[in-house]
């Protein structure tokens, strides 16, 4: 439903315009309020320790000391690299598994397919907090505590991605696959050289969402990796304030370092990120 600007009658034009201006003004004020906490974080990150609670939003004496401190006095690089590795590996494996599952659930006919889909989809309602205790016991029994496997493997499986990919594959025209079947291609070939290339847009959108979710994830890394060498950034900054005696300027500098890559990602891929969420709503 693309909506073009509704034609307005000349007579009501004046009235509509004042309503429109007030509307826009309210929207702009609210939008500024919405991003205020982010600006505030940035502001404090560039303030010296004595300026933290000064009311100016623009730091009176901007300094990079906080960033230097966080990156040199704390093994913050290490946490950033850990988080990047975990997020990237989870994203790649999850996309690989979910595209396979989504393709089979949308296209291949086998007994029990609908039941299997419903069973998999119903795990959508089970969020991590609900199963955190038994999952911990299970992962401990597997010997995965304080390991990369422990951080990565349980984070891969997620019904949301499977559901979206299945929806996407249901909407693809069948002709391309049928041509491949007539050419005698096996299902793996069809998946690899027909389906995957066709999935590029949705894979790109999901890759961003998965990476983001893992980069920002807290509960699981907190639970599975108590060993500081395997800390991810969110765990590190949550502990930061306790460890380095409540220096807000350092805490906000660390927060900025963690949040900025995601905000930049958002600026670049804004449309893809927001569109994929908007369409994910329902349409079941």
């Amino acid at each position, binding site marked *: *439903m693309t909506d073009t600007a509704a034609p307005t009658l000349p007579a009501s034009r004046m009235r509509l315009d004042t309503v429109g201006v007030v509307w826009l003004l309210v929207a702009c004020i609210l939008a500024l309020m919405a*991003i205020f*906490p982010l600006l505030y974080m940035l502001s404090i990150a560039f303030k010296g320790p004595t300026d933290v609670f000064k009311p100016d939003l623009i730091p009176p004496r901007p300094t990079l000391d906080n960033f230097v401190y966080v990156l040199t006095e704390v093994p913050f690089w290490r946490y950033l690299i850990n988080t990047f590795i975990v997020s990237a590996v989870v994203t790649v494996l999850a996309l690989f598994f979910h595209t396979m599952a989504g393709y089979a659930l949308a296209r291949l006919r*086998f007994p029990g397919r609908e039941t299997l889909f419903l069973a998999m989809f119903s795990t959508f309602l089970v*969020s991590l907090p609900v*199963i955190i205790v038994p999952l911990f016991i299970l992962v401990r029994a597997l010997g995965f505590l304080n390991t990369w496997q422990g951080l990565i493997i349980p984070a*891969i499986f997620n019904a949301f991605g499977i559901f979206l990919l299945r929806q996407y594959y249901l909407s693809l025209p069948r002709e391309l696959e049928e041509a491949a079947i007539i050419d005698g291609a096996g*299902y793996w070939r069809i998946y690899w050289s027909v389906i995957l290339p066709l999935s590029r847009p949705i894979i790109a959108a999901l890759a961003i969402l998965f990476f983001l979710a893992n980069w920002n994830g807290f509960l699981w890394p907190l639970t599975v990796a108590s060993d500081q060498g395997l800390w991810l950034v969110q765990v590190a900054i949550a502990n930061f304030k306790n460890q380095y005696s409540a220096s807000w300027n350092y805490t906000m500098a660390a927060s900025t370092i963690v949040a900025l890559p995601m905000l930049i990602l*958002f600026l670049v891929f804004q449309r893809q990120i927001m569109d994929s969420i908007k369409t994910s*709503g329902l349409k079941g």
Partner: protein
Amino acid sequence: MALSSTSETVAGSKPAASRGLTTRRREMIAGYLFVAPDALGLLIFVGLPMLLSLGVSVFDVDGFGSFEFVGLANYQKMLVDPLFWSSLRVTVQFAVMLVPLLYVVGLGLALLVQRTSKVNTVLRAMFFAPQMISLVVVALVFQLMVVDKLGVLPRSLSFLGVGGLSLLGNPSLALFTVTVAAVWFLMGFYMLIFLGGLQDIPREYYEAARIDGAGRAQSFWNITLPLLRPTSFFVLIVSTVAAVTGAQAFDLVYVMTKGGPANSTSLLISYIYQQAFQYSAFGYASAIATLLVVLLLVITVFFYLITKGGRFQYD
């Protein structure tokens, strides 16, 4: 292909169908293999823990992993544990505040930036931006903003004549402060869901209403709200489940208040976590988690019934 059909003794009697059956068999095997990694992964890392939770809840488990069967003792303990009841009450309070607030804010923002225009694209992005940062950072920034007397919010409030409030230190305010942080983080997501729903409402309805002399408010109550029913149900289900399981609130509470002051922000999930990972009472924590699952099932069935089988259909 013809060779493998020998195993199909029944199909052998119908030569025309036998080719169809073998390709069908191949398709079936391929299907199972393609689904296997995700199906097994979900089974092991989601399904199994759900079952395990029930199992563990009838044991007393210590920090070294030795189990002792105690029957329903953990459930009995729950009945007489005031902290459990308090965390259940806090969870309900949190859900009762969060769900309507998110609905109103999400729908309000969606209506505000509904029209397709360059300005609205920028505004939408600004409302959605908080979703990009982690809840840990959200919690830290809010904690800093509400620092007693010195923080931005207490200062603005005292400027407005409401001075001296301790937004996280006061047991009757702390949960609300956490809720506001959660709304700030989630509003962009629900705005987008509502925008998706609004898009599906045919414009002709509004034009017809305008010709009939209906005002903005009338169109909203008689067209927008009823036709948004599917979206509304989706939003209510997702936000209720998120509120009850503490999907976002756990991180916020963990960083901002650790459940305090006076347990006023200790949600069920915070209490479960504390019992399991602070006191190593895995059995007891599992019993509470089981109750959480039951609560979740009740909510799901409730929504399933009022949406007439989850089809979200409007009639």
